[in-house]
């Protein structure tokens, strides 16, 4: 996100603290100096990793602290979800299964652990999917459900609770 802070001692720290308080992981802080800016303000670009559901709360806190949010880059948001697939994964073209997620452009399989006890036996795999936001994640899991049904695989999803 790109934020505007007052050019005064302690202002940057005050702007970053709510991010840590919200459980965000600050990965980079880049100062931008722009001569056309209003005097006594600085633009700062913050790269952070934050669970999507906490974003609205963070925005509210930052605004309350007098920080102006200039831009919010949603593409930076990372959401991960792990599912387990059980069945004849290799015989039913595993790369096609993974490819169907990767080809969406908004989600991809970023990790996979697989065990194959025997040639004739069903294998089990833990797939971690990364997506840009919750809607895209839900779409990706929906694709997996369709694939699982078609290929006769058991898909075990995490329990997503209604809060």
């Amino acid at each position: 996100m790109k934020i505007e802070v007052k050019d005064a001692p302690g202002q940057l720290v005050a702007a970053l603290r709510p991010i840590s308080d919200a459980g965000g992981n600050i990965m980079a802080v880049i100062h931008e100096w722009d001569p056309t800016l209003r005097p006594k303000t600085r633009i700062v670009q913050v790269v952070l990793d934050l669970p999507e559901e906490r974003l609205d709360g963070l925005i509210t806190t930052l605004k309350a602290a007098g920080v102006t949010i200039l831009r919010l880059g949603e593409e930076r948001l990372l959401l991960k979800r792990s599912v387990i697939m059980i069945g004849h994964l290799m015989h039913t073209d595993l790369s096609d299964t993974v490819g169907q997620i990767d080809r969406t452009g908004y989600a991809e399989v970023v990790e996979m652990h697989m065990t194959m006890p025997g040639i004739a036996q069903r294998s089990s795999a833990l797939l971690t999917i990364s997506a840009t936001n919750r809607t895209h994640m839900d779409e990706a899991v929906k694709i997996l459900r369709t694939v699982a049904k078609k290929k006769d695989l058991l898909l075990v999803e995490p329990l997503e609770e209604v809060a």
Partner: protein
Amino acid sequence: MRVAILGLGSVGRGVASMLARKGLGITVTGIADSKSGVCDPAGIDIAAVLEKKAKTGLCGDPAVTARAIAEGGEYDVLVEVTPTDVETGEPALTHIRAALAMGKHVVTSNKGPMALYFRDLTALAEEHGVQLRYEATVCGAIPIIQTIQHGLAGNTVHAVYGVMNGTCNYILTRMADEGLTYDQALAEARELGYAEADPTFDVKGIDTALKLVILANTIWNNGVTLKDVECTGIDLLTAEALTLAGSQNSTIRLIGEVVPEMGLLRVSPRILPKKHPLVVRDTLNAVTVVTDMAGAITEVGKGAGSVETASAVIGDLLFIKNCHVKGH
């Protein structure tokens, strides 16, 4: 208050012996098993009946039937605890209808009639101004129906989800703990008496689905039936799947969930963090109710067992005794 007990299996014996032992002001005036029955308006000697049942397999006179007691017995509340039939709900359905139609209260542990004919039966009870209570049909000893109907009264219930089948939970606990295969864990559950000879009803998720149907109807009276439940069991899970979940500090549980706002009525194995409140061990059940005012409430307890289920039946009986029977 006078009660007639139909069914003298595990639950019926538990109820009868606890009523005899605890002296709760309840007189048993009729008892029937599938082949015989006994009536005494002055009160039955329960210990003698249970002893006779243990010795001969019959609780009374073969000429006295459960139906005759339901239709002609002198009682205030019918306790219907015969075995569940998920196809027809019989013979419990006929017994319950007969009692309600005569203006008698009914307490049942029988999932069949409640899941198949929930709206018909509750309407019949209402029409005759009597209580139909069924706490024992869902999660054994856990007072989830009372919690929803009374403890959380006035709340809007957004969702219910939980572990509602002890047999499946035992199998999954053992697979995760010891790396047993599904077949090994099932064999162990059978040896310990947690699983039936034919475990289909439990492991395919049908039992959980029936409980979901009853819960959904209790909360929303939405008329859903077993056909509306998307149901996946645990019988295709592998030991490796449990190990993979464990590598992420998670495990797998068979979860039943109802979220009407999302049109969701589903039973399926799910991945949960090991510290999640629904990750209970062995044969325990756990159920979470998500509400607007109270937030999420989770109750944990024994989902089956003779005395544990009797606890739910007796809770219902005393509720009726205290609130609905004149002069108790």
